[in-house]
C-alpha cells in the first residue's frame, strides 16, 4: 500500500462526499433549463443541507432507536460504497475487500435500513413508500447484477477497478453487449435513484411518490443526512456507470500522481455530461404508473440478459 494509493483512496472518498450535492444541483439546473424554468443555483442542495443541519430535530414519540440510527447507517454505507467504486484511480486499497457483487449488497443494506426506518413510525405514507421501494429494489437488483455479470464476463473479473483497467487497456472495439447493458444500467439508475419514469424527485406530497414518502417523518439533521445520502447514491451510481462503460481517462494501474491530475477534470467532465443526459431523459419521459414499474424494470433486465446472450453468442 503506497502513499499514492492511500492518497487516491482518500481523495476519492472526500470528492464523492463533497461533490455529490453539486452533481444533484447540476442535474436540477439542467432540468430547469430544459423545462423553461428559471434555474436554482447549482449550490442549492448545499444550502438545503446547511439549513437542515441548523434546525432542531422533531422525532415522533414512538420512534425506536432504529429510526434515529438509520440516517447514519445509510449515509455511512454510501460513503463506504463511494470508497470501493473507482472514480479517479484503479489502485484503491479498499477495493481488495469488496468486489462489485458486494457493492450491490451494500446498496441493498442501505435500502433495507431505509425501508425499516420508514415503517418504524407506523404512518401510512412511510409504510407505503417502503413497500414500493422494496418492490422497485427487488426488480432492479437482478438487472443490476446482470449488468455487472456481463462486464465481468468481458473482463474475467468481478472487481470493479480491474474491469475498468481491462476496458481502458483493451483495443477500442464495438461491443453490442456493452451497449445493451449500458441501456439496462441507465434504466436501473433511474429506478434506483427515484428519478422520473419511476418516481418524481421534485414532488413532496403526492400519492405516487416512493422515496419522498419514506422520508416524510424525518426532519433536521436526520433529513439532511438522508438527502445527502440520496445525492451520494446518485453520484455512486454515475461512477459505477463510468467505471463499467466509459472508463477512459481514469488513472489506470500503478500510475504516477500526475495521472490523477488528469483523472479529476475528466471525471468532472463525465459528470457534467451525465447530468445533462439524465436531465434530458427526465424531461423527455413521463412518470409511469406504479403498476407499470415492473414492466420498466423487466425491460431493463431483458436488456441486460440480451447483452449477456449477445456476448456469449457473438463474442463481442
Amino acid at each position, binding site marked *: 500500500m503506497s502513499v499514492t494509493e492511500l492518497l487516491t483512496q482518500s481523495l476519492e472518498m472526500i470528492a464523492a462526499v463533497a461533490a455529490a450535492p453539486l452533481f444533484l444541483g447540476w442535474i436540477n439546473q439542467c432540468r430547469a433549463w430544459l423545462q423553461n424554468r428559471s434555474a436554482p443555483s447549482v449550490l442549492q442542495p448545499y444550502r438545503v443541507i446547511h439549513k437542515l443541519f441548523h434546525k432542531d430535530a422533531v422525532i415522533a414519540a414512538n420512534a425506536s432507536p432504529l429510526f434515529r440510527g438509520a440516517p447514519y447507517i445509510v449515509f455511512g454505507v454510501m460513503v463506504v460504497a463511494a470508497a470501493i467504486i473507482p472514480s479517479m484511480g484503479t489502485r484503491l486499497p479498499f477495493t481488495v475487500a469488496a468486489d462489485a457483487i458486494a457493492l450491490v449488497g451494500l446498496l441493498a443494506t442501505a435500502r433495507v435500513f431505509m425501508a425499516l426506518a420508514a415503517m418504524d413510525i407506523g404512518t401510512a405514507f412511510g409504510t407505503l413508500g417502503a413497500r414500493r421501494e422494496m418492490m422497485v429494489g427487488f426488480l432492479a437488483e437482478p438487472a443490476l447484477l446482470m449488468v455487472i455479470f456481463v462486464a465481468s464476463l468481458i473482463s474475467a473479473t468481478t472487481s470493479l477497478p480491474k474491469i475498468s483497467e481491462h476496458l481502458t487497456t483493451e483495443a477500442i*472495439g*464495438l461491443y453490442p453487449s456493452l451497449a445493451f447493458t449500458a441501456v439496462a444500467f441507465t434504466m436501473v439508475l433511474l429506478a434506483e435513484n427515484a428519478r422520473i419514469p419511476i418516481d418524481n424527485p421534485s414532488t413532496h406530497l403526492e400519492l405516487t411518490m416512493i422515496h419522498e414518502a419514506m422520508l416524510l417523518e424525518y426532519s433536521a439533521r436526520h433529513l439532511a443526512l438522508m438527502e445527502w445520502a440520496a445525492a451520494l447514491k446518485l453520484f455512486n451510481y454515475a461512477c459505477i456507470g463510468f467505471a463499467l462503460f466509459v472508463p477512459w481517462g481514469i488513472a489506470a494501474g500503478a500510475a504516477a500522481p500526475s495521472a490523477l491530475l488528469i483523472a479529476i477534470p475528466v471525471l468532472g467532465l463525465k459528470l457534467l455530461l451525465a447530468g445533462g443526459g439524465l436531465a434530458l431523459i427526465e424531461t423527455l419521459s413521463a412518470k409511469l404508473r406504479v403498476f407499470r414499474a415492473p414492466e420498466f424494470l423487466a*425491460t431493463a433486465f431483458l436488456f441486460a440478459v440480451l447483452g449477456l*446472450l*449477445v456476448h456469449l453468442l*457473438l*463474442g463481442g
Partner: protein
Amino acid sequence: MTQLSWDLQLLNVCAALLLLLAFAMLSQRRIVTLVDLLAMQGAVLCIATVLVAWRTGKSHLYVSALLTLGLKVLFLPWLLRRLIRRLEVYWDTEPMDNIGGTMLLGLLIVIFAFGLAQPISALASTSTKSTIGVAVAVTLLAFLTMITRKKAMSQIVGFLSMENGLFFAAMSATYGMPMVVEFGVALDVLVAMLVLGVFFFQIRERFESLDLRHFESLKEDR
C-alpha cells in the same frame, strides 16, 4: 479476446439491433409504432446485407439489399400505414396485460434458438455463421409476436418480421438464397400483403372489427 475485423463487428451490431427490434415489437402496444419498428428492422437488414455483400464480393446480394430497401423499408410500411389510415385503426392498441411475462418467455426463446443454431453454425462455412442464432431467434420472436396479438394488423406485422428473420438466417448460413428464390419470396410477400389488404376490409365489414378473437367463436354463439 481476439479482435474481429471491423465489418464483422458492424455485422454483429446489426444482428444485435435486429434482436433488439424483435423484442421492441414484442412489447409494443401501438399498431402504428409496430409498423415503424418493422421499417427499422428492414433498414437494419438492408445494412447487414450490404455489409455481407461488401465482405464476400457477391454482387447478387447488392440486388437483394436493394430489394429489401425498396420493399421492406419503403413500400410495405407505406402500404401498411395507408391501410391503417383507411381502416381508421390509427389509435388502436393491443389489449396486452402481461408484457413482462411475454418478454421473459421471449428470453427463453432466444436461449432455445441459440442452442438450436449451434450445430448449424458449426457446420456452416460462412464467416457470418455466428449470427445464425440471432436470425433463428428473430424468426421465433416474430412468431411469438403473432401468437400474442389479437388484432389483424399486428399479426401481419409479425408475419413480415418473421420473413425478415428468415431472410437474415439464409444470409448468415449461406450468403443468401438464389436470386430466383429471393424474387419469388418478395413477390409472395407483396401479393400476400395486397390480398390481405382487401381481406381486412371484408373482415371489418363482416365483424365490424379487426379483432381476430371474433373468429374463435362459431356463428351460432355470437
